[in-house]
């Protein structure tokens, strides 16, 4: 891919001034790339972009504070960086962003569903991209899947495919997939009765193994090593294997992200047992966007729950 080479050139150009550039390289199997930390020219050669460039490299930024780091970013990744910068958690001048037009990334669960009856995604031996499709080499022969069918949900509602805040942008900017996020997914979820929603979360959360991959893959989770999930002071959670504590942790995470979450979806992707965690965060995002008109990752200034207005025209307080 030409654009991949252009990105490589862009990386090579800036690499000397940076401690490293984070992008994507080959992963453990054909359908998965891995985050790639590029420190020399040989590393740059391993760089890949495209449909498998799933991981959000912004995740690594807070831990790399103090040294200037380059990131190759999709539009959604750039929003995570933007939010970190808005909250002064990362210094903008310590980050060099290389953007490129992102046309979507793969969703492993959707791929698994598309392959059902044929094989597991873990059995796919090879992958090539053709037009808007991916062609998979499976034990039972080639399978062609439309990218749009197996792309992540967030890509179908992508408003910012081009990392607008990039220091360098490689390639031509492309049009957003949608103009606004209508939260249709939430609306669909809310077709369920209240009790059914409860039951849904009870069931989903009962699978949770408390590995905290959701938390550790979240680029905006700032507490990291000091998460309240395991603390006794304060003691918000017990270690009992109950749905209540598991769900409550998700509420802690979602609450802490209210107004800050950019919807990158890494929490949900990282969850090994497939709990739809982004739904909770998007419920908060919908609220915050509606009430305060704040778009995390794009707007400057503190997120809305860390500030206030004397008059809140959007808040209709209930009369008693």
């Amino acid at each position, binding site marked *: 891919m030409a654009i991949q080479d252009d990105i490589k050139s862009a990386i090579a150009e800036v690499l000397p001034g940076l401690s490293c550039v984070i992008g994507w390289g080959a992963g453990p199997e054909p359908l998965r790339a891995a985050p790639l930390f590029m420190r020399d020219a040989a590393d740059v050669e391993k760089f890949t972009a495209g449909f498998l460039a799933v991981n959000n490299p912004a995740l690594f930024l807070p831990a790399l504070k103090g040294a200037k780091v380059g990131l190759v970013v999709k539009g959604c990744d750039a929003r995570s960086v933007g939010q970190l910068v808005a*909250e*002064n*958690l990362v210094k903008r001048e310590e980050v060099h962003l290389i953007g490129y037009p992102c046309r979507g990334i793969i969703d492993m669960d959707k791929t698994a569903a598309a392959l059902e009856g044929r094989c597991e995604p873990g059995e796919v031996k090879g992958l090539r991209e053709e037009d808007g499709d991916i062609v998979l080499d499976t034990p039972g022969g080639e399978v062609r899947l439309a990218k749009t069918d197996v792309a992540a949900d967030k890509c179908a509602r992508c408003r910012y495919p081009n990392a607008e805040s990039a220091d360098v942008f490689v390639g031509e900017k492309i049009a957003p997939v949608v103009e606004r996020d209508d939260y249709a997914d939430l609306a669909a979820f809310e077709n369920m009765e209240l009790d059914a929603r409860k039951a849904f979360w009870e069931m989903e959360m009962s699978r949770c193994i408390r590995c905290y991959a959701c938390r550790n893959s979240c680029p905006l989770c*700032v*507490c*990291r090593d*000091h*998460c*309240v999930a395991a*603390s006794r*002071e*304060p*003691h*918000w959670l017990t270690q009992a294997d109950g749905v*209540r504590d598991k769900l409550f942790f998700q509420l802690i995470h979602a609450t*802490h992200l209210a107004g800050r979450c950019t919807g990158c979806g890494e929490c949900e992707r990282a969850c090994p047992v497939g709990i739809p965690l982004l739904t909770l965060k998007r419920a908060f995002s919908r609220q915050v966007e509606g009430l305060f008109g704040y778009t995390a990752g794009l707007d400057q200034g*503190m997120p809305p729950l*860390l*500030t206030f207005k004397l008059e809140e025209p959007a808040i209709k307080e209930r009369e008693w």
Partner: protein
Amino acid sequence: MRIGVFICHCGSNIAGTVDCASVASVASTYPDVAYATDIMYACAEPGQDAIIAAIKEHRLTGVVVASCTPRMHEPTFRKTVERAGLNRYMFEMANIREHVSWIGKDMEANTNKASELVRMAVSKLRLNRELKPKSFPVTKRLLVVGGGVAGIQAALDAADAGLEVLMVEKQPTIGGKMAKLDKTFPTVDCSSCILGPRMVDVAQHPNITLYAYSEVESISGYVGNFDVKIRKKAAYVDWSKCTGCGLCTEKCPSKKSYDRFNEGVGPTTAIIIPFPQAIPKKASIEREYCRQFNTGKCGVCAKVCPTGAINYEMQDEFIDAKVGGIVAATGYDLMDWTVYQEYGGGRYPDVVTSLQYERMLSASGPTGGHIKRPSDGEEPKDVVFIQCVGSRDVSIGRPYCSGFCCMYTAKQAILTKDHIPDSHSYVFYMDIRSPGKGYDEFTRRVQEEYQARYIRGRVSMVYPKGKKLIVRGADTLMGTQVEVEADLVVLAVGAEAAKGAPHLAEKLRISYDSYGFFMEGHPKLRPVETNTAGVFLAGACQGLKDIPSSVAQGSAAAAKALALLSRDMLDSDPQIAAVNVNRCVGCRKCIEVCPFKAIQEIDLRGQPKAEVIETVCQGCGLCNATCPQGAIQLSHFTDNQLLAEVEALCRF
């Protein structure tokens, strides 16, 4: 931990609807409870002694008292446990009176609820830690906001005791409403004769700095160390040069200015000295009426001023001051009576307010003490006083009694007769409220000696007919309609908190009620304190009151301020936020939200961390609710303590 639980009967206040013994017996099964009993009056001396004895006998390390609201007796019991050798914060209260026994009669439900509230208190107490206050120095200076009679009294008392006092007055002169009065009830002595010398005292007192024509711009800091910014409004006259000679006011060509001091009775000039006895006696220009400002052409005052004090370019000035305590004495204003369309809504010139009438009566007023009808300058013979115009009227949202109108109306009726011996006064009243030394005798005198006709009833309509005003109303004692042909109608307009009082309250961080009156700390026991330490109340700003009461409260506020500022050091409340540096990741979110700028970033071995400035922290806990990892905790209200209370109630 060894906890003692004391369930107070409060006589029958609690025991009437709560089975206190049963609550105590349930409480004895709670974790760490070593002793539980019920007690007749926990707050009385025998009760406190019993608590102390129990602490000693049962080697208690924490105490729960279930009684009235902690807003009432928490300080009392804290002192009690302290006397027994415990730390004052190893104590919790369960409010089983205001929140239980007084709001329902169901014994079973109340007893159960009381038990649960005790359980919550015990659960929290188990996590309480000993807290020790820190000492900090006090600024021995008092700010008095408002230069009416209450503020003057507070300032003089405090200054006489040796305290430095700053007085801030919005108007160009101090004196407040009292300065506008002609005479005072029930002695009918001259208002300015008794107030004037006190005003002069303020001006001359070495310990008092007066900022007239100034307002409090902002207040930060905390008890003992408030930082105040005062806005000295531009008077366009350099007061350091102005001698108060008044030449400018004589020559000013703009003679149709609204006369604020005289309540608009007659016009005045654009450059004014409010009244001859004004303190400070300095001129100031009312910009909106001044030709120089409106047309750019005039400059008469600048030309005639012998000391060259006029300065049209003058800007507002800001003065920063540090004070240890604040007395709010912002007084009252009359409500906007023109909502009463039945009295003309302001359309009839001969319907005046009581304060306007006061200016007409005053020898130093615009009419020189001659009562004249505003419409034609004639002397009225029939004067009708209507009381409760904007008081005790639910229909316009003013259910309260303004308190002093009955008395001043009586006084004005007397003065009317004194001024115009052949006049007749009619007073429409709802009730005569005259409790006070010599007050009721006074209202009788006006009826018996001065033949004022008191008519018990409301006036339904006032309308002009020829040169007269027809006052139509009901006489509820006679059960008839009455119509009086009046030459002048005087409305006893209800009072309300001074304009802008809520605004000041917000700056002072004190509460105010729905009418703008400042909330005292306790309606009976802390009538001059507020719930914000170091802020005191004097006069009508706290609730309407007459001159003697205002003066008394002014002295009381001064006494409270003196008690506070007589100390060199104050103890800081240890119920403040504290950072666990091991958990803090230096994300700055607490710093971002702190309303008091009480958190700063420090560098700890190369890591950014938050640090609480202990004397600045007010203990709101906003940082605690904001910190995602719970690294900053509000002492005495930690996450774990609140969670313990929640989980005492709901945990499967």
